[in-house]
């Protein structure tokens, strides 16, 4: 909220500069979001005296004037007809910027040069009057600033405070901040609250009834007669404007003024429009009926239900309680008698209603954070006072319904605990003084009994009190202290360190780490063939592109690939993150790793094998190469990811344990993402992977006897897979086979060359023995797999 510093000064009696006060508040109370000199010098517009007026030679409606601005004389073209020689008028000279960021420039208007502008009221940002040039007082001196003659005070500053919910009830008001300032300066706040007592004059015209007492704690109505609706005086307009409110008329402005001063939202009705019979008026506060309608001040017609509270005259809805007045009950320039409202509404109900209806007003903003019901009385008295002055109002009488009076509550404070929690001993005298300044009366028993004034709704526990003591005393006085605790090693978070290991290995394999948002859109579901019902869906997404919580890491990775292909032709990226699937209507969280690879020259199958190699390297480095397999997925449609190329996808598993999949993205999906290269991805569940990698690596003795290697070159029938060859070789060779390696492959003919390494653990193999094994292997390959051996 924005505050006028002059106003705060007036209320608090502080002598501090705005900067000093802002600093004090920042360190002891709340965050200051801004401090600015109020921009009310009208941009430097000065007084000019009209010396000459002649007709414009080329335009009927224009006149050419000669203006004295003290030392200089200016020629200015003017379109208004209300000017006369000798008058004093506001002149905006060249270079001045008027409200609306309108800069005055030297101009040629229909062939006549003009060096400035004579201003109407609205052009100075002072009102809506555009009927003619604003004529100033005769005594105004040419060349001086205009503001001097308009009663504008330019010495004010605007303080903007970030008001958090706990203090909204007292700080969203000048009196609240002034009280705070006084306390910080260790002075008693001397606003005459106690004198603000409702006159005992009971209204004969107004009756108030609260039907729903749980939603309205108090309702004060007051009837004022003899009202004259006029423009507000300048001082009032100025203060509203500094606080960011628009001036409307004296009555409405007065209600807003009191709200800004005391924090109590107020409302004014035109009695003429709400009366029921014989000039009388019954205000009934009740819940709306289902489908009941009201047209609000902003002309919106809304439908209500029983959760919404209304101010009615029995039949008609007059206002949506605490949120906005009705269009048909408001003040107009013909209003003579008014009904004023100062009420206390249930915060939760106001909040629910304004959220449900999407309304947000200065009034609801305050009510929804709760307000002291006792404030209504003070505010009403202030409002009556002001209206007597600025609208000639005469109080007819008052109707005050306050079913259950709220009194101060008591909080017991353990002084020792206060010092213990703050970590510093606040001298008791100072502590008691702070409480006293806060308006809290204390009584020392075993604990300190603190009676909390009703205007501090936030002080309910002793920690709340300790906070106020601590901040007013000064947090800077609290020294840092080392914690005295047992030296215990931190428990290691295995998953965190496992993931670090994975990251490091992938860096070594040349992959860069990306982070993505956890959402994608309905468009992505379509492009990738994902199913909506497998996804958790946001109720309030930022935009439709981010409506679903990701169930697959691959989708956003594809977008990364597309974007990076604009700058790079070959890269590998990875992301570690959570994704969520919806299974049987329950969210299932998975922590996954995704890898993606694109190659500069991507051939037919290079991309796939390149990524497969990286995955194998990764798994091997984790000590889980043995027993890991890349099997073809079993053809269970729901199991295969829909966006994968079905003939280039593999499960990654250890024994029966499937930990992920890898393969190429389907061509049609790539096309829909406008990616023209093959993209291979691998997605692995990290929790499962960690379990698989848990077993310790065990050292195998290095063979003391020589290892012999033999190569076989062959043409393999298309239907035979490499894994069958490897398995057959190992089976046939038995214990003597150390390893089988595919070291060359010619795809067109499906020819392969494998290298077989053999050794024995207890002897050097004789060449006859080796030859015999090789012969056996070759013959099995030829017989079982119909392989054609090239000799």
């Amino acid at each position, binding site marked *: 909220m924005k505050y006028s510093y002059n106003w705060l000064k007036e209320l608090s009696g502080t002598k501090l500069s705005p900067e000093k006060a802002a600093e004090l508040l920042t360190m002891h109370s709340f965050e200051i979001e801004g401090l600015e000199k109020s921009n009310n010098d009208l941009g430097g517009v000065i007084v000019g005296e009209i010396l000459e007026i002649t007709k414009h030679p080329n335009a009927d409606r224009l006149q050419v004037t000669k203006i004295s601005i003290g030392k200089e004389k200016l020629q200015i073209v003017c379109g208004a007809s209300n000017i006369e020689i000798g008058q004093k008028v506001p002149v905006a000279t060249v270079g001045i910027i008027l409200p609306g960021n309108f800069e005055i420039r030297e101009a040629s208007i229909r062939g006549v040069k003009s060096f400035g502008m004579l201003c109407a009221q609205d052009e100075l940002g002072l009102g809506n009057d555009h009927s003619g040039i604003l004529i100033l007082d005769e005594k105004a001196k040419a060349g001086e600033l205009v503001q001097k003659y308009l009663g504008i005070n330019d010495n004010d500053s605007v303080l903007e405070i970030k008001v958090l919910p706990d203090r909204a009830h007292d700080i969203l008001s000048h009196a609240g901040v002034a009280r705070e300032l006084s306390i910080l300066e260790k002075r008693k706040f001397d606003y005459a609250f106690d004198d603000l007592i409702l006159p005992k004059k009971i209204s004969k015209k107004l009756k108030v009834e609260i039907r729903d007492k749980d939603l309205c704690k108090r309702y004060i109505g007051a009837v004022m007669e003899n009202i004259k609706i006029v423009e507000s005086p300048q001082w009032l307009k100025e203060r509203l404007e500094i606080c960011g409110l628009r001036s409307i008329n004296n009555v409405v402005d007065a209600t807003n003024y009191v709200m800004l001063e005391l924090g109590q939202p107020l409302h004014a009705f035109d009695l003429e429009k709400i009366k029921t019979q014989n000039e009388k008026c019954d205000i009934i506060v009740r819940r709306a009926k289902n489908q009941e309608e009201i047209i609000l001040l902003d002309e919106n017609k809304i439908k209500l239900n029983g959760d919404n509270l209304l101010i009615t005259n029995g039949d008609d809805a007059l206002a949506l309680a605490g949120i906005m007045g009705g269009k048909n009950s408001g003040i107009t320039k013909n209003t003579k008698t008014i009904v004023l409202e100062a009420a206390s509404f249930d915060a*939760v109900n106001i909040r629910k209603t304004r959220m449900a209806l999407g309304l947000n007003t200065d009034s609801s903003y305050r009510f929804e954070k709760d307000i002291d019901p006792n404030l209504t009385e003070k505010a009403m008295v202030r409002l009556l006072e002001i209206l007597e002055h600025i609208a000639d109002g005469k109080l007819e009488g008052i109707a005050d319904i306050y079913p259950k009076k709220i009194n101060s509550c008591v909080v017991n404070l353990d002084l020792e605990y206060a010092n213990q929690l703050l970590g510093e001993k606040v001298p008791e005298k100072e502590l008691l003084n702070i409480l006293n300044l806060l308006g809290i009366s204390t009584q020392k028993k075993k604990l300190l009994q603190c009676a909390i004034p009703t205007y501090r709704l936030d002080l309910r526990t002793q920690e709340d009190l300790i906070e106020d003591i601590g901040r007013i005393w000064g947090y800077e006085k609290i020294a840092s202290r080392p*914690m005295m605790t047992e030296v215990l090693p931190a428990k290691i978070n295995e998953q965190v360190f496992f993931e670090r290991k994975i*990251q490091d290995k992938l*860096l070594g394999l040349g992959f860069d*780490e990306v*982070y993505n*948002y956890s959402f994608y859109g309905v468009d992505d579901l379509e492009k990738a063939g994902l199913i909506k019902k497998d996804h958790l869906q*946001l109720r309030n997404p930022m935009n439709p592109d981010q409506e679903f*919580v990701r169930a697959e890491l691959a989708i956003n990775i594809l977008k990364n690939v597309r974007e990076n292909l604009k700058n790079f032709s070959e890269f590998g990226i990875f992301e570690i993150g*959570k994704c969520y699937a919806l299974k049987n209507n329950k969210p299932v969280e998975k922590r996954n790793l995704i890898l993606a690879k694109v190659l500069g020259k991507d051939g037919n199958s290079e991309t796939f094998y390149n990524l497969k190699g990286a995955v194998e390297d990764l798994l091997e480095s984790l000590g889980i190469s043995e027993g890991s397999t890349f099997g073809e997925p079993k053809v269970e449609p729901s199991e295969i990811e829909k966006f994968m190329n079905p003939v280039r996808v593999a499960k990654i598993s250890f024994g029966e344990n499937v930990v992920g999949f890898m393969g190429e993205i389907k061509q049609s999906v790539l096309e829909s993402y406008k990616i023209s290269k093959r993209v291979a991805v691998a997605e692995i569940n990290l929790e499962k992977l960690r379990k698989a990698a848990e077993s310790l690596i065990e050292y195998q003795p290095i063979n003391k006897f020589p290892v012999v290697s033999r190569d076989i070159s062959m043409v393999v029938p298309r239907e035979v897979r490499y894994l069958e060859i490897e398995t057959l070789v190992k089976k046939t060779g038995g214990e003597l086979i150390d390893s089988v390696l595919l070291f060359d492959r010619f795809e067109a003919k499906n020819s392969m060359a494998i290298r077989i390494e053999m050794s024995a653990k207890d002897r050097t193999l004789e060449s006859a023995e080796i030859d015999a094994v090789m012969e056996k292997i070759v013959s099995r390959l030829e017989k079982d797999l119909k392989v054609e051996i090239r000799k």
Partner: protein
Amino acid sequence: MEILDIINGKKADLSKIGPDAEKEKIDITIPGKKEGIGHLNPISIVRRDIEDIFMGMGFEIADGPEIETEFYNFDALNMPKNHPAREMQDTFWLKDKKGGENLAMRSQTSAVQAKYMEKHKPPLRIIVPGKCFRREATDTTHDHTFYQFEALVAGENINVGHLKQVAQDFFSQFFQKEIKVRLRPSYFPFTEPSFEFDITCTVCGGVGCRACKYNKWLELGGAGMVNQNVFEAVGYKRNQYTGFAWGFGLERLAMMKYKIDDCRLFHSGDLRFIRQF
């Protein structure tokens, strides 16, 4: 012996011969053949730094789900339904529910606090680094997805002075220079008292410079003494323990450390950005 001499002589002759040396010579300025090492996202780097410093101080690293029930994200943190403080964080809500309970993308790592405390008794020291979500308009300093790290200490007689010290030690380690900490009053429902937290400018050390806009202090995050209602919600006896907690943005630290001027880059996936780290 003679043979050896002959061999050595020949060797010496050979090395003197011009044409062979000429063949051996290469242009050592030609770029080497690189395998290419990958790069971590700067958030990961900063996260590791933070984790390591806190582990050194005996803090355990904890984590929880990114989708939270309304209870853990709000109620257990002293923010019952219709509490105005709920609006301090614009939350992404899910259409789906869990056993009738509303679900939200967690708006703060504090959601992990209650979960952890339900299973562990003080004394405890944890940090929770993690992804959080808020439905906020994005600009160079705000993103709807961001990383926080939460610290929580609970035990007997933990006080504001301890919070100051731990924070000071951590930031001094992190920035490799002496950092001072300043507390200002603030409000969070899950702490009482609550603070805003400033550290001395990491560039000028608190003298005033262009980096801190002559403020001397940099605003870093929120902190406070754990609200007794939070302790009660997890089953501790009121006023039996005290503790402190804080939450900071990882992005902010990464941005300060590397002078990054747009936080949206972290989630851009742009390799021109990531390959700089």
